[in-house]
């Protein structure tokens, strides 16, 4: 079982790869809309990738209103 810290790191690495920014340039507190300059639709694409990676389903309501990696990682962790 992953720790929250591991999950968070995997979320950051995957997001960096997905949006083509240097791995390590993102931190848990980052607002992904702002930091990556993405819109809600691109966020949904990122979520699908995270779901595949972690082998879970994240219902849309779980990520409603979430805009930072830290909270996103916590929501993922609760479903692992």
């Amino acid at each position: 079982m992953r720790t929250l810290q591991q999950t968070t790191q995997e979320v950051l690495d995957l997001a960096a790869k997905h949006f083509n920014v240097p791995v390590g340039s993102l931190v848990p507190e980052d607002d992904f809309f702002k930091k990556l300059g993405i819109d809600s639709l691109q966020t949904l694409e990122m979520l699908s990738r995270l779901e595949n990676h972690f082998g879970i389903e994240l219902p849309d309501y779980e990520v409603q209103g979430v805009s930072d990696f830290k909270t996103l990682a916590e929501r993922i962790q609760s479903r692992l």
Partner: protein
Amino acid sequence: MLDLSKYQSIGEALRDSLEQFSNELCLIEADREREKERLTYGNFKERASPLSRALQDGGFSAGSRASIIMTNQSKWLISAYAIFFTGGVLVPLDYKLTPDEHWQLLKHSGAAVLITEYPIWRQLSASAGRAAVTNVQIVLVTEAPANAELAGAQRWEEFRGAGEPVFVLRLRSDTACIVYSSGTGGHPKGCMMTHENYLEQCVALTSIYPFWPGVRYLSILPTNHAIDFMVGFFGPFTCGATVVHLRTLRPEYVREAFAKYRITYVSLVPLVLKNLQKGLQARFDALPAGQRKMFNVFVALNKALTKSRPRLGISRRLLKQVHEAFGGELRAIIVGGAFTEPQTLQFFYDLGIPVANGYGLTEAGTAITVNDLKPFRADTVGKPLPGMEVRIINPASDGVGEVSVRSKTVMAGYLNEPELTAETIVDGWLLTGDLGRFEGAGHLQLTGRKKNMIVTEEGKNIYPEDIEAVFESLAAKEFCVFAANYIWTARSMTGEKLVLVLHLEPGQQYNEELRQDINVRNNRLLNYKRIHGVVLLDEDFPRTASLKIKRNDLAERLAKLDSAAAILPL
């Protein structure tokens, strides 16, 4: 289709639809690749009647108000039907608002009943905003887990009354819905929409984009939004068509749904449409040179053949693969909520997929103008719908002025805001605050905004006043939020931004600490409500005797600055 001229209320028309189309397929609901259920109109009635009865048993009666805060799903429509059947007023709220914003609007609307989903209720019930709201007497939550803490709510699935509910007739002039076009700040703008507004709008819209049994509408835009309420609920129901709901809006499942459910119509916001365009363009660009050349020939041929009007049969044969990706039955994509760039509209039309763009605002009913495709005009928002009088007030030499509308679809007014209503509806004409002109063939072209607001590509209306609270007690002498376009009028309906205007204390510097504070506060706002930059003004803001900022005067002063240099990005 029902003859809506004979009806007084939404509830009356829907009641007859369920009878008339009893055996037709009404709803399909799917979650990812899993289809959850299919309901006929007869099944829909069986689901709705016990809810209507239970509402009546709970004291819900003519004029009582009930709010729905839910994602798009069958229980949204079943609940709305029960509210209308029992003579109630529906308050549909955007599920994407924050819990505090929800409570604020629930209080303002005077809703006695709240119908919501368990995950939303979990947040609502824990929110501090709940304490100040005493009008909500009954809370119904859908899909709560077996052992869930309901915090005073009841399970929607168990809220069933025994016996037949009693139908309650409302008149055309009665309020059917209170729809919030904005206003989670100081002045919530609750548009009081009458039954007549909806009945007339439905007739007008379906005269151009008809529904019939067998038509399948994919409901993606939130149903609280005027467009989905009309074309994803009332319109198809009065024609016996089918509405398809997806419980997740991930692009891959939305794409699959087109083919899987043979979708006829879908409504999208411009952002999603542009995303589809991007995806298709990437696929076209990836074609080997020979195939690409061939493809371009077919597109050119399709363009020539559809110049005067759409010819779906021909387009589907010429560009088979493109149309099959959309299920092969798509007749039109309805786009709304915000301005759509002409090149995006043209891109789809050239592929033989008409995009029904138009122009509307909540206050005027769903739509004021719609592109009738005869011929398709990407550079306009179409012609006024039947029953709509549209005129341009005080046009300049180029014909551009404020767009105003008179029609049976215009709202009765803003709830509890007689002064605002009187400023907005003058001598029966609704002043839209949008700027535009009519071109030679009678099509409306929008050129900008007169009002201090922005509309995002996701179709969100943002009023600067609504977000100012987050900057309260900021270390500055005074501040004000504006739509940049309102200060520096741009002949554009896209790419609009909000700016924070700051007047610092004497000797104070705009330093990193202040910038960080603004950033932190800005990040508390939902992403689409955030300010884009800061404008520094070294003079006192003009104010009224009661010390309110004279926004118009301030905007005039700011307009003298060079916008490119004045806006400091965050």
